[in-house]
């Protein structure tokens, strides 16, 4: 009996700040939260601990959906949470808010604070804030290899002594140090040892202590931590305290009183104090030796960010990445092979025979294996056309992303993007849009202001062709380079023009641009493959069913005659653009799938039905045309019914308007293509 009590007492720890930590028991599964700034390798660590990999990305907001996994360490099972990137416990972005909420509401049993070892001085202030919360903490100096290459050497035991928590050095990508980490986690859970409190300078320390005494309730964090956040007038915490505290009045007046005591805002003062403490600790615990590596990486980075060399580099990447890899290889070689040899040569005839023999009803045959059949066209397009193009695009994008090139691109184009109401950050959804506009529209979530999100969604719907469409358009202009250049010129002009106009018309605050530029790294094969896989997987899960549905709708539309009515209706504006009537069908298809539309024109071109002039008009109008049904639905989902539908209507009208204009201009100038 006594033994049982002893064991029970050992498990019920009393925390240092008047709180009980809930430690691991046999029944409960322990919770581990991984916390830290973006780009430090949190997600890779998450994978190491759980075996479930999550997309690792440089750009802000990818991990906005919180990843959780089950991890086994020794004999124990844990729930591991990968929180969004957090710079400070006082959140600026949505991601940081989410990260803090996780800590506050879920009271994890252990927090792993992952930092980039070479930037310890800059990141340690967050460790101090986390220490203040009273939650159990382990500091992880990750990417230790890069720090060592710069000549840095850490005295881990000294750091442990000064901070009062375990400190582990790791390289999450290779797995070095992870076993030590696992042992440390198990150790840490068995004891609850108290971290040293770092007292601030007199006036601040006294203020905090006084304030702490005023707080009555129990929160996930220590009262001292709450006090600090209330003093800095954090809106969410203030609201929480207002609900929990019986008497909030004295707190409000204390906050007002506190403000006058310091020359600067309290958040600034606290940040300064913490930085001072952090710098002191780091200087004690770090030694500098000789640098190991040469500097060609830095040289390349400088070439990328300087406009004179950066733009040529960008053009090279666009050419080899998009045009050659996605266009020639993906849309050309792979598609030809899959479509021609595999599908048209073998699968389609076989399937058609099978279905025709199984189902004698013409209507069903039409649905499945007819001209627009779900199997003969829908599946064929998805697997033989979309899959290779989209996969090659995502492959190229993931490579680019993994190297750390994208932030450098952002800073090059920030000024141009400012002219259209966006910032350099929007480069990510825009480039992604060249792969799949629907996915890119989802990513616009990460843009900080509503105005940016609307403008980005509009431009994606209007002027960014997705890879499927791009592939076919490039094929359309084969042998007609002048036509291609005209098309390109028109699209870019529309992009800039509409962007500029919307930045003037749509109200909202002007966004600011600030971004960390991570070091250039060689892309890791496994990273790239896994990122590509998860994106392609998402694409198929979300988009593919919609396209099958599209086939069904087309079939329904055909048998009901609705299809023909709409096509007839479209013929009038089509004629205005100088295009043959047959083009109407392609446009209608273009709504369901952008590449269907382009493919229709490709067929017409092969049959020699289109002049070069008509080709350009068609290509321009099609590119600008309404987003495909998937993107249309995503627009509504992300921006709301009114904005979503409004955007699409505008795009519809604008695209035909521009097509008409081009038609007139080409006619007037008498251009022969």
């Amino acid at each position, binding site marked *: 009996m006594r033994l049982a009590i002893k064991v029970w007492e050992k498990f019920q720890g009393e925390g240092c700040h008047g709180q009980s930590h809930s430690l691991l028991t046999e029944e409960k599964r322990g919770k581990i939260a991984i916390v830290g700034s973006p780009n430090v390798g949190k997600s890779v660590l998450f994978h190491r601990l759980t075996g479930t990999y999550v997309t690792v990305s440089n750009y802000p907001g990818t991990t906005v959906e919180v990843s959780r996994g089950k991890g086994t360490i020794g004999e124990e099972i844990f729930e591991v949470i990968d929180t969004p990137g957090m710079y400070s416990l006082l959140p600026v972005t949505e991601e940081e808010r989410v990260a803090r909420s996780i800590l506050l509401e879920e009271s994890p049993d252990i927090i792993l604070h992952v930092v980039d070892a070479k930037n310890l001085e800059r990141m340690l202030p967050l460790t101090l804030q986390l220490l203040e919360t009273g939650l159990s903490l382990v500091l992880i100096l990750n990417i230790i290899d890069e*720090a060592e290459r710069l000549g840095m050497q850490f005295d881990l035991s000294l750091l442990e002594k000064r901070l009062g928590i375990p400190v582990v050095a790791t390289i999450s990508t290779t797995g070095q140090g992870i076993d030590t980490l696992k042992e440390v986690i198990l150790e840490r859970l068995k004891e609850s040892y108290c971290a040293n409190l770092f007292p601030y300078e007199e006036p601040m320390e006294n203020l905090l202590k006084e304030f702490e005494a005023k707080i009555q309730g129990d929160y996930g964090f220590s009262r001292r931590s709450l006090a600090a956040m209330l003093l800095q007038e954090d809106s969410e915490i203030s609201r929480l305290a207002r609900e929990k505290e019986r008497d909030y009045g004295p707190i409000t007046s204390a906050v007002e009183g506190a403000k006058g005591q310091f020359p*600067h805002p309290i*958040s600034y003062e606290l940040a300064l104090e913490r930085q001072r403490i952090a710098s002191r600790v780091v200087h004690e615990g770090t030694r500098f030796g000789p640098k190991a590596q040469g500097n060609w990486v830095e040289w390349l980075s400088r070439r990328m960010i300087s406009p004179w060399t950066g733009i040529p580099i960008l053009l090279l990447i666009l050419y080899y990445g998009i045009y050659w890899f996605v266009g020639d290889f993906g849309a050309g070689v792979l598609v030809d092979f899959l479509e021609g040899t595999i599908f048209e040569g073998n699968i389609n005839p076989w399937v058609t025979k099978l279905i025709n023999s199984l189902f004698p009803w013409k209507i069903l045959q039409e649905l499945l294996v007819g001209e627009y059949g779900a199997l003969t066209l829908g599946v064929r397009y998805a697997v033989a056309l979309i899959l290779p193009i989209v996969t090659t695009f995502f492959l190229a994008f993931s490579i680019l992303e993994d190297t750390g090139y994208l932030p450098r691109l952002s*800073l090059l184009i920030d000024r141009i993007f400012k002219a259209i109401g966006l910032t350099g950050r929007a480069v990510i959804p825009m480039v992604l849009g060249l792969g799949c506009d629907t996915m890119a529209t989802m990513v616009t979530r990460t843009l900080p202001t509503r105005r940016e999100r609307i403008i980005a969604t509009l431009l994606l719907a209007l002027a960014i062709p997705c890879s499927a469409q791009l592939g076919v358009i490039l094929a359309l202009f084969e042998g007609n380079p002048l036509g291609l250049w005209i098309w390109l010129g028109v699209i870019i002009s529309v992009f800039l023009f509409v962007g500029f106009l919307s930045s003037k018309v749509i109200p909202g605050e002007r966004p600011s641009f600030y971004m960390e530029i991570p070091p250039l790294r060689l892309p890791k094969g496994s990273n790239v493959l896994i990122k590509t896989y998860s994106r392609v997987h998402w694409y198929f899960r979300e988009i593919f069913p919609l396209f099958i549905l599209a086939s069904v709708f087309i079939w329904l539309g055909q048998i009901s005659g609705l299809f023909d009515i709409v096509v007839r209706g479209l013929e009038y504006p089509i004629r205005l653009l100088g295009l043959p009537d047959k083009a109407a069908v392609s446009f209608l298809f273009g709504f369901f799938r952008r590449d269907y539309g382009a493919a229709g024109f490709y067929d017409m071109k092969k049959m020699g039905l289109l002049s070069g002039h008509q080709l350009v008009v068609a290509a321009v109008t099609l590119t600008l045309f309404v987003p495909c049904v998937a993107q249309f639905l995503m627009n509504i989902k992300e921006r709301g019914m009114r904005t979503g539908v409004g955007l699409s209507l505008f795009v519809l009208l604008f695209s035909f308007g521009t097509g008409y204009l081009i038609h007139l201009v080409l006619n007037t100038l008498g251009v022969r293509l």
Partner: protein
Amino acid sequence: MRGLFPNQRVSDDSLSPLRIRDSPRARVDQTFKSMEEREMKLPERAEEILETLWMGIVEDQKNSLSLGLSEREDAVAELLEGGYIQVADGDVFLEEKGREEGERIIRRHRLAERLLVDVLDVKRGFTPEMGCKFEHLLHEGIDENVCTLLGHPKICPHGKLIPPGRCCQKSAREVARVVCPLKDLDVKDGGTIAYLATNDEGRLHKLMALGALPGLRVTMIQKFPSYVFQVGHSQFAVDQEMAGGIYVRLEKDSNHF
């Protein structure tokens, strides 16, 4: 005429206080007195009243203040006489002349505070009174030099706006810079972050989140098309507005190798 700092252009006024360093005490008093006479400088008390009025009426946008002043007080009488203020039923209003003079006084006061905190590095025990006394010594013309020296700061250490002067428009660069905004650094220049312009809480938090905190060393890498700088072992890119919010104390040997 050479002033205290190298490359400094100073007005040719032979009564410039910069020469006071060489004068014995008697001449100091006399010089000050004649300065006051020449410029009709208001007594300290009057200046303080104008300051309070300016902050209340112009900054806090009240119509008038009731300061409980008696018209019999010398300072008040002088202000009334000079056409700086108007008193009605115990409420004090600012005239146009008072507005202008008040703005000038506030500007000198806040520049003085910046000087104390940034250059003279007065941290502990920084009291408003020190700023006050110091400010009264800042004579017209010197405030332009100080302003230029500090890189035309926009806010005082308390976060309030510093009214701009002529020098801010001209952006005169003849005086050697000691503290300047990040965007004025040249490529390869380095320094220590002195302070963050704090009147926009959102921007302040963003800058702090990046880790751009006073005390840390910063080096400029590139200025166009975006500002790229290094803090510690990390690099950051910001646009012009953000770069204007970080004030850097230049290192002595950082001016162009």
